């Protein structure tokens, strides 16, 4: 763990979020030193704790789930019963304390709890609040519930995945939620910068749908400007050829592509088929696309005879775009990810030593870290409310008696 002061040291975050879109924002901030309090309740813990596998030893339990753990490392865990006045009082104190408030509840829920932006601003004039939800805070479908995995279909991703003749394909999990959370993290940091310079915070209304659409902005503009309706095309590309995945010896797949005639020439040499480089059927990218079947067969035969790793190394030595198709298990053995210390193991009170995932960026002079494993349910109530918020022993006990921490 780094002993240098981290970039977001001193930044405080209250996270009234559950599942993916809210908590991933808090995790990114926590990984760079922010003090992030994840608020849930004992009566209704964060849905990611219990609703999805995997669980340690396959046995469900609030502190045994990988899904929750993956997005909540480095945070403090608090429980508040927001349906009790006592819980709401403490929630308001937390909002007054926080530089940043994150919530991904349905529109209006925070307001009904007395924790909407207007109320938050009254408690904390410079607060930066991120409200992230399916459709955004306004509009005819603002109150439609939605899960990110399905929103990925509404936002065009699934329709763009698969073969032209086949059905759409699923992306794993709530793909679009992580687009929204990454963009949401940028937005709250911008709000923090504004607050630092002007004293004014901000209310950020982020629609996960709209954020996600930015990842197909090119296709959307192509439709608006040219009437082109983008369609799924397997692994093909409009420019590069070849551009495909091939099964290798041992069952792993290899992804490879050629972006110039010269590169194709180098590929031909590597696979021992020099003559392909001067074959008129493959002379240009357009020709290679037109004769895709014959070309893919030649490459597939070469791939089938060697393992994906070796194939990729040989191709890269010849300056050809190639990489094994990493399975989830391969990721834990990938030498580049290891070099960047992407997987960092931390001890979790119930789950034991588990791997957590470090973000894709790092700072040279103020590196981030996985500060700790994900919190057990309500593990830090005393730390948060006594140490951070300054409640006396007596006041804490009184809140406890009133059911605030349920």
């Amino acid at each position: 763990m780094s002993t240098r002061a981290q970039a977001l040291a001193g930044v405080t975050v209250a996270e009234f979020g559950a599942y993916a879109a809210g908590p991933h924002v808090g995790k990114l901030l926590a990984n760079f030193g922010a003090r992030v309090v994840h608020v849930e309740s004992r009566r209704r813990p964060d849905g990611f704790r219990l609703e999805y596998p995997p669980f340690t030893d396959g046995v469900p339990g609030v502190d045994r789930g990988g899904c929750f753990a993956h997005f909540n490392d480095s945070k403090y865990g608090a429980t508040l019963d927001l349906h009790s006045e006592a819980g709401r009082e403490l929630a308001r104190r937390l909002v007054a304390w926080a530089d940043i408030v994150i919530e991904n509840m349905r529109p209006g829920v925070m307001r009904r709890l007395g924790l909407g932006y207007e109320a938050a601003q009254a408690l904390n004039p410079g607060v930066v609040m991120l409200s992230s939800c399916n459709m955004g805070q306004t509009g005819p479908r603002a109150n439609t519930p939605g899960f990110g995995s399905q929103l990925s279909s509404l936002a065009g991703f699934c329709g763009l995945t698969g073969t032209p003749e086949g059905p759409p394909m699923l992306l794993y999990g709530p793909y679009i939620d992580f687009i929204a959370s990454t963009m949401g993290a940028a937005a709250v940091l911008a709000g923090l910068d504004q607050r630092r310079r002007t004293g004014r915070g901000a209310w950020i209304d982020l629609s996960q749908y709209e954020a996600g659409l930015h990842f197909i902005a090119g296709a959307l503009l192509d439709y608006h400007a040219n009437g082109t309706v983008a369609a799924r095309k397997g692994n093909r590309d409009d420019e590069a050829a070849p551009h495909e995945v091939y099964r290798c010896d041992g069952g792993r797949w290899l992804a490879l592509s050629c972006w110039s005639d010269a590169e194709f020439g180098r590929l031909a040499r590597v696979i021992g088929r020099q003559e392909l480089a001067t074959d008129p059927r493959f002379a240009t990218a357009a020709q290679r696309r037109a004769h895709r079947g014959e070309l893919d067969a030649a490459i597939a035969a070469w791939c089938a005879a060697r393992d994906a790793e070796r194939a990729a190394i040989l191709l890269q030595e010849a300056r050809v775009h190639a990489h094994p198709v990493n399975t989830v298990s391969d990721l834990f053995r990938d030498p580049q990810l290891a070099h960047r210390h992407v997987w960092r193991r931390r001890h979790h009170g119930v789950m034991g030593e588990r791997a957590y995932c470090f973000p894709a960026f790092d700072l040279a002079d103020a590196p981030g870290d996985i500060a700790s494993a994900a919190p057990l349910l309500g593990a830090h109530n005393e730390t948060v409310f006594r140490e951070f918020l300054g409640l006396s022993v007596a006041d804490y006990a009184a809140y406890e008696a009133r059911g605030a921490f349920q």
Partner: protein
Amino acid sequence: MLAGLRVLDCSDRLGWLAGRMLADLGAEVVKVEPPEAGLGAAEWRAYNANKRLLRLDPRRLRERAALAELLAHADILIETAVPGSPLAGLLRPEVLRARNSRLIQVSIRPFGEDGPRAHWRASDLELMAAGGALSLAGEPDGAPTRVSAPQACLWAGAQGAVGALVALAHRAATGAGQRVTVSAQAAVLTALAHAPTFYDILGEVPTRCGEFITGRTLTGARMRAFWPCRDGYINFVLYGGVAGRRSNRQLAEWMREAGVPLGAVAGIDWSTFDPKPLTQAEVDALEQPILRFFAGLTKREFLEGAAAREMLGYPVSTVEDIAADPQLEARGFWDDLRSTARAHHCGSFAIVDRVRAPLRYAPGEPVDLETLLAEFRGAHARAPVAATAL
């Protein structure tokens, strides 16, 4: 929110979204491109809207000097320089740092700045492969399949924007800029949700499941996610949990109202429904009558019906469906760049204080070197202020 922040975006597609996000958040972003770069493609235009364009030839001495001077006054540099390229020589961190200690240099690379494979060539296909995402889509007995629109560069760009702003916070406390390095391969990991935990905790390898979801039951049963409908497909899943149970009950009601046979759906107590213990046979029996019902609906009928009933589930949209979505229209999502022609860009990605900031520049809106130098040499919009405790 980032008013006055000066960003030089010297990136290829790995960095475009980073610059665009900072622009959407209020920064003044200039896209730097060599004279020969073709900038007409929809993808370039989409991600480089909201930025001015500076054509600059890094092989020419005078323009190299001008870029160096711009960098001496910039707050953030986004770059994806390939080692050995004309631009790379100009963007060496130690040189930039010496001339501008406040500069935040965001270096986005396919695999990161160094390491055994840092020099490997990768386009979107290889990066989605390297990051694990490719293995997770496609038919289970078929080939790993990518989204037919580049994604890895966008994951990278988004992480780059976050990294830039984390460094900005650090600069506020210390007065100093620094280098931020981004790996596009690592950025793709964000797209995997919690899939890695299956391997870490149970030694199981999540893999592609085609039109079905796995990982929701303890028996390993798969559940249908895509259902053919009259004009395409619908995405619906029999979820558990509070929201899922309510949704499933609404669907059963809808089917009753429509007078279609409910089959096994009729016998379920939705208030206690939990998919975790279901066997494949039980899942299949529930899904049969739903398959028949959905086959008779259009995408639009499902979208409106599900919204009216506050049900989970969405149609599988094409860009045409998205362009016609009244929700986006109501939110002012499309930005026509103050033009009468329907430019219809994706607008600023967030609404801040109830306003979606209009895009300030059309893609390719030019700025010349002299004007920019004068701007940058002018009074610092962001002179260092005393560090305040946050």
